């Protein structure tokens, strides 16, 4: 047998073509809406047209007269079963259906069940709800002065959800008091919605005979969702051992499919009550108006520095709008998530960050939209502030960054807010990005253009991410440790089935996790099948978000494979008739030390594991490993954006976008590049288009893709990528995770570029989303 190589195995570092593509390109994916069960009926919501109102009555009689409408469920029925409220991942409670009052426009008020989605829609139209409008709290800045929204919570005396801080307040204030230079900027990180192309949905199938329930749902975290179901509805039969949550193919998640939504609960309750499978699929409008939004962080950022450009301290004051229920999906002990990573890539003496979160009459949420729990917000404020400081000091933003980067010798580096960065080489990533961009020439071109009255900007972002939640000592969601499991079964004929507690939504786990196992076991990746998303078969895990799959489940997979290899080595020794100590794993097979042609492949060992097991050894070759990561991983990179602005109209074009990422060891370069491309496009979308907007009455102003704008191929530039590789010292294969860096790192590169183009006019900041009219307006204000 020819010697195996990583390439022949489809192992680590290989651009293996994706297994999942074969079904997707032929229209054979199996998404939630593709699930049809015999006898299936449909549910649809009656939603509140008001942001804040009392419900005086609900009249379902006309709806029930529509042929095909089977039932109209309201909060009253839910309350009879003690199901009117559910916990959020943030530890708040959320109304499954509004009872006596609605707290945001689009809130679920009643659930119409009918024989088809067409009749369900007709039924929804005929449910009459008598509302008495109340004044809504829309502006988060005024929320604390307004009457209490959450009257359901007895101890709630105002609209404050939490006050949280990190870092050293006194040390930070001291430095600010004595600092030579201080810059300050208020930024509004607008409310956005992840808007995956597939909306949320559920098909619940309760079998009244066996009492078993299968819930197919768009879930980034099937196990966590099943546990919550059991906690909330165990008393009506949804106990964990009788409930199976299945997340089928998911058409993008980006954090949108982490929370539990009333639709999942209602479809399940309706199935339990009626005894038939119930399907609920969100419309796009429902998706935008009621499910997990992200960001909505309003921040004043200050930097204290010396005159020669040493950043000394950072002070951050943030007001967070969480909507009507605190339904963010952060680790429970971390109400502002990992926001205290906001000192970013810079070595400074002290920092203090404070977040006040408030209720408003808007949809609940605060999800981690393609980011690890508020790290996008953190990266935005530091990278904007550093640019501002560069301007203040009249320094090149590159020079200022280089001067303040945490030097690579200082890793592992303890940040002033307490994080221990695992590894980094920020200068190298910066150098590479500058080289690809041709930075000096770009600055020259800019100067020439400026002299001619043309507007061109160059924006830099040197971000540090934090990924892979997380070490279980401190990181849990509703008490569930943020660890993840991997199960590997090597079959007698040497093929493998692996199951994971995470859940791909397009990231390509079926391919990349097979590559990890291929590398560890010497079995070709095409002989390895990876299954996720079924709680009946997959080991427990908290799911896929926050770039945690590779750092956490990836670690579990490697260590499960290595545990299998240990047993396999004992069996190999038995087959080779030598002692275990004389057998080594080399060239992807077991060899007798010093005698390379005396060897056994993993396939041969696997067969023996079921046919020729040595005495004292259990039969079989399989294991499950739960991985508790010792620390987070800290991916980083430098992004450079070049933008041209039309001074007459304010229209702008992103001419170039250079992204140099370092996510440690890369499993599949093709897939990794794809992840970066996608993250960049979403960053571009946030910087220039995406914004969930409300009027003063709390009406959502952009409830469809006609007004909630997502970029097309035309607005999206030809991404130019580069990479450096600084492995994580604590991850079993040195991987850090790459799914979200680009979304974390890119928005501020674009804002910095636009501001840079206008900086000579005295422009210091423009809030996202940046639009032609905003640019035109600042140009007018500066009297040009």
């Amino acid at each position, binding site marked *: 047998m020819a010697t195996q190589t990583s390439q022949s195995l489809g192992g680590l570092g290989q651009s293996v073509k994706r297994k999942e593509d074969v079904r997707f390109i*032929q*229209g054979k994916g199996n998404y939630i809406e593709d699930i049809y069960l015999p006898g299936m009926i449909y549910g649809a919501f009656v939603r509140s047209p008001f942001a804040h109102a009392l419900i005086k009555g609900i009249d379902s009689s006309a709806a029930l007269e529509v042929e095909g409408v089977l039932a109209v469920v309201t909060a009253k029925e839910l309350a009879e079963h003690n199901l009117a409220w559910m916990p959020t991942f943030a530890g708040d409670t959320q109304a499954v259906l509004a009872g006596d009052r609605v707290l945001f426009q689009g809130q679920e008020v009643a659930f119409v069940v009918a024989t088809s989605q067409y009749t369900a829609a007709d039924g929804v139209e005929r449910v009459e709800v008598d509302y008495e409008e109340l004044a809504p709290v829309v502006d988060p800045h005024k929320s604390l002065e307004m009457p209490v929204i959450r009257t359901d919570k007895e101890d709630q005396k105002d609209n404050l959800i939490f006050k949280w801080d990190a870092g050293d307040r006194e040390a930070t204030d001291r430095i600010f008091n004595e600092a030579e230079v201080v810059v300050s900027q208020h930024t509004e990180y607008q409310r956005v919605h992840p808007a995956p192309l597939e909306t949320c949905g559920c098909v619940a199938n309760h079998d009244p005979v066996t009492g078993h329930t299968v819930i197919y749902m768009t879930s980034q975290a099937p196990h966590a969702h099943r546990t919550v179901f059991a906690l909330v509805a165990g008393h009506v039969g949804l106990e964990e051992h009788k409930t199976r949550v299945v997340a089928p193919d*998911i*058409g993008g998640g980006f954090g949108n499919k982490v929370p539990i939504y009333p639709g999942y609960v209602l479809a399940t309750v309706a199935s339990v009550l009626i005894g038939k499978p119930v399907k609920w699929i969100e419309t796009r409008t429902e998706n935008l108006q009621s499910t997990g939004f992200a960001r909505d962080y309003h921040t004043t950022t200050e930097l204290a520095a010396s005159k020669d450009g040493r950043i000394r301290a950072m002070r951050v004051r943030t007001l967070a709008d969480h909507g009507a229920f605190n339904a963010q999906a952060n680790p429970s002990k971390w109400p502002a998530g990992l926001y205290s990573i906001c000192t970013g890539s810079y070595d400074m003496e002290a920092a203090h960050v404070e977040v006040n979160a408030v209720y408003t009459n808007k949809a609940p949420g605060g999800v981690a939209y393609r980011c690890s729990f508020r790290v996008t917000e953190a990266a935005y404020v530091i990278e904007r502030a550093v640019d501002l400081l560069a301007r203040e000091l009249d320094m090149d933003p590159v020079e200022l960054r280089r001067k303040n980067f945490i030097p690579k010798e200082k890793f592992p580096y303890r940040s002033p807010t307490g994080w221990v960065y695992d590894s980094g080489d920020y200068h190298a990533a910066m150098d590479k990005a500058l080289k690809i961009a041709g930075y000096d020439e770009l600055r020259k071109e800019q100067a020439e253009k400026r002299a001619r009255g043309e507007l061109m900007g160059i924006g830099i972002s040197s971000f540090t991410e934090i990924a892979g939640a997380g070490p279980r000592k401190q990181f849990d969601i509703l008490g569930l440790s943020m660890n993840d499991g991997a199960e590997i079964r090597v079959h007698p004929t040497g093929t493998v089935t692996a199951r994971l507690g995470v859940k791909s939504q397009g990231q390509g786990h079926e391919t990349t996790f097979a590559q990890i196992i291929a590398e560890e076991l010497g079995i070709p990746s095409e002989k390895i099948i990876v299954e996720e998303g079924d709680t009946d078969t997959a080991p427990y895990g908290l799911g896929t978000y926050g770039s945690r799959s590779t750092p956490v489940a990836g670690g579990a997979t490697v260590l499960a494979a290595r545990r299998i290899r240990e047993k396999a080595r004992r069996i190999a020794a038995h087959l080779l008739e030598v002692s275990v100590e004389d057998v080594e794993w080399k060239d992807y097979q077991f060899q007798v030390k010093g005698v390379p042609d005396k060897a056994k492949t993993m396939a041969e060992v696997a067969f023996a594991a079921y046919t020729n097991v040595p005495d004292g050894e259990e039969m079989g070759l399989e294991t499950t490993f739960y991985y508790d990561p010792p620390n987070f991983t800290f991916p980083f990179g430098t992004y450079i954006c070049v933008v041209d602005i039309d001074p007459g109209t304010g229209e702008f074009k992103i001419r170039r976008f250079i992204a140099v990422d370092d996510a440690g060891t890369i499993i599949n370069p093709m897939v990794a590049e794809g992840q970066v491309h996608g993250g*960049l496009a979403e960053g571009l979308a946030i910087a220039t288009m995406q914004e969930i907007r409300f009027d003063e009455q709390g009406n959502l102003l952009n409830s469809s893709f006609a007004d909630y704008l997502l970029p097309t191929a035309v607005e999206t530039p030809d991404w130019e990528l580069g990479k450096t590789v600084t492995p994580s010292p604590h991850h079993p294969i040195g991987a850090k995770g790459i799914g979200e860096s680009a979304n974390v790192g890119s928005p501020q590169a674009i804002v910095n570029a636009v501001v840079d183009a206008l900086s000579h006019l005295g422009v210091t900041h423009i809030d996202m989303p940046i639009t032609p009219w905003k640019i035109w307006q600042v140009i007018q204000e500066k009297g040009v």
Partner: protein
Amino acid sequence: MSTHTVTLTVNGQEHTAQVESRLLLTHLIRDVLRLTGTHFGCDTTNCGACTVLLDGAAVKSCTLFAVQANGKSITTVEGMAQNGGLHPLQAAFREHHGLQCGFCTPGMLLSALDFLKKNPDPTEEEIRWGISGNLCRCTGYLSIVKAIKAAAKEMAAGGK
């Protein structure tokens, strides 16, 4: 309620169905014919996930009533493969990583198919305009553009 008999050819096969006049073409394709590669993504004619070919032209099937397809010919993603093999566009999407979650992919493929018919040798910029009626949230489009470009070459070479 007004119902109508609709006869149409889908992927070369004739189907007859009794439909309500308001039934959307996407629902006919998905719920009645169970060709679930055609997806709903937005409801407002923006995303293109429901794109099919109607008498050879790419259209958004969520913005047609099923009755309008009476007597017409429709191609969905399930009908793209030729002679038992993948269409060059399908193969190129996999080869160049032109998809991630796969939800936009069927619509994207059919838009590209119509586009390449009219523009067999396009520039990357033309391709970007050609797929501007299809949203993708995963790929940042670059790999899709490269896949379509590669497929164009392949199709020219194969005379398809």
